């Protein structure tokens, strides 16, 4: 590095990256905050971001299907890897409830109800569908 301009350029890059990383971590805090809010409101169960493992939270989400459509739109189920996923589907039409990726499926009779309970082993985003109609009723998210 003999040229002072080059040194200035490298310093500028470092400054820019520090600003970026700082922005990134502040973004991270907001995510944690909203996660905590979700937990306290009991909307969806998810374990904290901290290192210590909490006991897997268990909250059953009930999805209601009317006229072959999910009431209130596609439900979002969010969990962390290792949690116990629990949800139930009550449907006024007979169909097969299929969770992609995990490849779990159960038949539901018209007016009947089925429930799912399994450990969140696979990370990613997965669809829950009324298989015969091809209608998505919920989305399962498993965060690492």
């Amino acid at each position, binding site marked *: 590095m003999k040229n002072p301009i080059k040194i200035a350029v490298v310093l500028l890059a470092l400054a820019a990256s520090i600003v*970026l*990383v700082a922005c990134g971590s502040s973004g991270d805090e907001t995510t944690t905050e909203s996660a905590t809010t979700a937990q306290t409101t009991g909307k969806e169960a998810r374990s904290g971001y901290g290192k210590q493992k909490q006991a897997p939270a268990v909250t059953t989400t009930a999805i209601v299907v009317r006229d072959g459509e999910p009431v209130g739109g596609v439900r979002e189920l969010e969990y962390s890897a290792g949690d116990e996923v629990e949800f139930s589907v009550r449907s006024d039409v007979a169909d097969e409830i299929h969770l992609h990726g995990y*490849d779990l499926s159960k038949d539901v009779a018209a007016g009947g109800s089925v429930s799912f309970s399994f450990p969140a*082993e696979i990370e990613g985003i997965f669809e829950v569908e009324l298989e015969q109609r091809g209608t998505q009723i919920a989305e399962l998210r498993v965060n*690492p």
Partner: protein
Amino acid sequence: MSWLPFAHALAARQDLPIPAWLFAWGASIVLIVSFFALSVGWREPRFEGDRWRPLGAAGWRALTGLPAQIFCGAIGVFLLGVAVYAGLRGTEAPDRNFALTFLFVTCWLGFPLFSVLLGDVFRPFNPWRAIGRLAGAGFAALAGQRPTHLRYPERLGRWPAAIGLVAFVWLEIVYGVSGGVSVGLAPQSAAVAALVYTAYTLTMMALFGTERWCRNGEVFSVYFGMFSQLGAFAVEDGRLGRRRPLAAAPRWASVPGSAAVVIASIATTSFDGASEGAFLGALEWTFERFVDAELGLTAALRLTDTIFIGLCIAGVALVYLIGVWGMSTVEGAPPLRKLWTGFAHTLIPIAFAYLLAHYFSLFVFQEQAQFTYLLSDPLGTGTTDLFGTASSGIDFQLLSADAIWYFQVGALVIGHVVALTLAHDRATAYWGDYRQAARSQYWMLAVMVAFTCFGLYLLSVANS
């Protein structure tokens, strides 16, 4: 309208968005690397002279001999036939039918990868080239003279391939979606499209000659061939040889329309990524306007997507144009048109990085299906089990979310570095004066940073 189906037809699992902190780190590394590159630039072009050396051993020669060519061509034709047959006669379920995974994942995503690693591997397996050559040889044997062809208009260059590339992606991700139901392209449609494309390609080959059409108009030859320019292996004069990696790329874009091919590649991948997050709001808004205008759901969805693919192409072309225009203002610059063609190859690594970042997990997971149940039960009828693997499934635990994130960000950063390397090298060749060359590269640096950070941004908001 949260039920809008933008999901890939095949993917039973979708990627989580990269976390904010990783996005920030990725973007920071990109900036540091870029500024560092400015200060260490070399002064003489290093990749311009393509010194290709044949691999000497006799074993290598057998790889490119006539028996091997016939063998590979026959495999290519056979597999195309299997895909078309499975598409026409097999199940309608996209994920259980051999055709879709084979055409859109194994070939469409696999050949770019293997082209970079091993050279232009599509060329020997290209089914249309094999049929064209066979027809040409048959004609010569019967008529006692080689077939005569029309002169290919040189000004057309690779434009037919660029247009075909957009048409292919349009078929895959625009035509495939249908309103309200999360079903992608039907296997039957894919098979019919393959037959139509076969008829079109063979006609063009008959008109202009097989090899000529493969160089300019045959979409897959041009597209996969583009990626093979980055790699170290190539066949020249019928012999397999080695060269310095990246050394072939600078010559690639001299044919008209090449810039359009690489721009189309980046733009279509961008659209696919952006429709999962960045553009979702805008897409839904536009879609609702069209539905209000009493268009059918499917038509409204296709029209919306078509408009946004067009916008993506225009956007990518505009960013590149700004970079090229900027370079043309630097003293001693060649004319704008020469710069536009002359730097097009520097976008190939970006296009490849975009592909890897967006489709890596889909490829890894779907290839498990390809080599297990799709191979044993290509029609998806549940009645055949050719290799005893019909009941195997995809192990989605093979890749953790973290592994996918690091791979995605790593691919974009490495693609960025390679792109900068090629651009700097080309600049030292175009500008005699080293200082002017370096000055021109501020502009290309801005272009590359824009593409790479946009790619990172797409990953950070996809499915969020």
